[in-house]
């Protein structure tokens, strides 16, 4: 009788690729940048495009992060999320227009103060609207995806129409505060000041959000709740309350993103949120529904790709995001960073 083959557990190093696999999503962002560098003939235009891509990505992240968490935590899919973007933009821009003297003054302090007031007004308004939206629209349809999609869509239509009633059907043009106009030159590339500010703000928000999620008890509850809400309740935490908090915070973030996006585009319409939803969906899908990190990486990828392609082949820019989504879903059907679900 031959000896049975010995099964010795080996601790051999896994192959390089295996060890890289968990990091792949993070690496994709620099990879896209490098491919962009290779494909775009001039380095200075590459730099300009990269900054605007990152700025766009950061803003999309701010708008999308709330939606992905709301989904992760309570399995609620909010098709009306985009309306917070529009409302935030209209409230914020109205404040900025009212503070015309502060924004037109060539003083950075006054400009930033006006921006701060606009952002505060926008986030308060959208946070409050988010709270009402959760109560009236979302709460009665927990656990029923089909109804959620329909009802939140209905909510989007109604609030969008209310914007038109309050602000009129015309688009509103807005110029950026004086100190944020123009560009700085770096390594031969013109980098718009506003975009640099947007990148900074997005990064700061991402890090803050990460800190809250990783290092505070409420963050622990949220992360645990995404995986297994029932157990979080069995430990004694009122998940519903946490969820309402996340919904309100997510709506406020969307409102903030709306102000930033409005100033980026320098024009706002009632439809802008609905138009952004397409980008947001792509980002949360490729990131992995419920994952904040995935959402961040996805947003940066979409922003960069959009800008590179728009430069190289303007007509293809529209479908580049769809192409990216298809490619990612073929690679990881649940998105780049799939969220563990206990159920």
């Amino acid at each position, binding site marked *: 009788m031959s000896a049975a083959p010995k099964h010795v557990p080996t601790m051999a190093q896994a192959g390089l690729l295996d060890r890289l696999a968990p990091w792949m999503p993070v690496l994709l962002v620099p990879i896209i940048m490098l491919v962009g560098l290779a494909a775009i003939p001039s380095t200075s235009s590459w730099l300009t495009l990269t900054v605007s891509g990152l700025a766009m990505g950061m803003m999309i992240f701010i708008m999308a992060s709330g939606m992905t968490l709301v989904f992760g935590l309570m399995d609620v899919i909010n098709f009306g999320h985009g309306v917070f973007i529009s409302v935030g933009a209209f409230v914020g821009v109205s404040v900025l227009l009212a503070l015309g003297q502060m924004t037109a003054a060539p003083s950075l302090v006054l400009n930033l103060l006006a921006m701060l007031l606009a952002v505060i007004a926008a986030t308060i308004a959208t946070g409050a609207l988010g709270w009402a939206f959760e109560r009236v629209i979302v709460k009665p349809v927990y656990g029923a995806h089909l109804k959620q999609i329909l009802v939140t869509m*209905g909510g989007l239509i109604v609030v969008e129409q209310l914007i038109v009633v309050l602000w009129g059907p015309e688009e509103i043009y807005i110029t950026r505060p004086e100190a944020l106009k123009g560009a700085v030159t770096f390594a031969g590339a013109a980098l718009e000041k506003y975009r640099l500010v947007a990148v900074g703000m997005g990064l700061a928000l991402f890090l803050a959000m990460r800190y809250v999620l990783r290092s505070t008890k409420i963050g622990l509850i949220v992360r645990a709740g995404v995986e297994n809400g029932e157990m979080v309740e069995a430990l004694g935490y009122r998940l519903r309350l946490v969820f309402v908090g996340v919904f309100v915070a997510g709506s406020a973030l969307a409102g903030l993103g709306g102000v930033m996006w409005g100033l980026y585009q320098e024009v706002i319409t009632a439809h802008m949120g609905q138009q952004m939803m397409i980008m947001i969906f792509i980002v949360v899908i490729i990131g992995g529904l419920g994952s904040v990190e995935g959402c961040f990486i996805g947003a940066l990828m979409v922003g960069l790709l959009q800008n590179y392609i728009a430069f190289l082949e303007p007509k293809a820019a529209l479908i580049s995001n769809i192409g990216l989504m298809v490619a990612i879903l073929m690679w990881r059907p649940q998105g780049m960073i799939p969220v563990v679900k206990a159920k």
Partner: protein
Amino acid sequence: MLVKLLSGDLPRSKLLTAILVAILICLAFAPFLFPGIRSVDTAARICIFILLVASYDLVLGYTGIVSFAHTMFFGIGAYGVALACSHMERGFGALIVGTLSGAVVAALAAFLIGLFSLRVRAIFFAMITLAVASAVAVLVSQLSGLTGGEDGLNYKIPRELTPAFKFGGELLGVKLNGKLLNYYVVFFGALMLFLLLLRIVNSPFGRVLQAIRENDFRAEAVGYRVIAYRTGAACISAAIAALAGSLYAIWLRYVGPDTVLSFEIMVDILLMVVIGGMGTMYGAVIGATLFVVAQNYLQELMQVASGAVESVPLLPDLLSPDRWLMWLGILFILSVYFFPTGIVGRLRQDD
């Protein structure tokens, strides 16, 4: 015979039956009952939207998945006919080629989207269809060389279907011309496809779809391949939406992004399905008829109401005919909460 034609799926309510018969008669004899360009045009739009909404109900109401690409499929059918008529010799050949290729392309697109999204989670389908449909809508308005861009396409359909073609004089005061024939192409096309849909939802295939909608885990456990059935439903629904689009293109002799691809139409379809009644083919008939009539005539009423309260602040704005979408939105939310089975469900309950 009638029962067989309806695949044994009767309205099951006296009032509903009466309304349906009335709608059928009105549509069948519309050119004679309501002569006039505008009213015949409204009737044709009702026929087409009944079909479009019914095909949407196949995925939404019967399969329980939400698609936001239904206007895209509708548009594919419409542009299929438009492109075929623009590039091929004038005649019925172009219509047939355009119609068939539109349906095939739409089914294929639905298949691909379903392949990517439905195997993960059914809600992916909603998001991905929304993303794809809006990308396509923008693409169509950008590729002006092929699609005519924002302006859309005007093209010639066979002469037999235009007002220029006359056969005989008048019947009951109505001119017998190609436009009349065109109307009946639309009417019978829509009617036949509607009966086909009725057959599909009452076939074993349709019953499996409903079982999946009720409980997909159980259906999977019993041995049905849920993804295959859902994708199949999405493909059939897309093909029929494309056929409705082709009929629309034949009727209008014009296609453009606003008329066949816009998101507003998608919203309209959603409203029609929900208000009429999800998961009941007859809901599409009620919903579409009510909606199209309201769209054409209710707005005038709102104009009057808005004028009447002119002195009150804000109210005139809220009642302005441009705001009718807002009221529909509210109605929509209320009906999802309180009458998820819509008007048809209500009527059946009362009986």
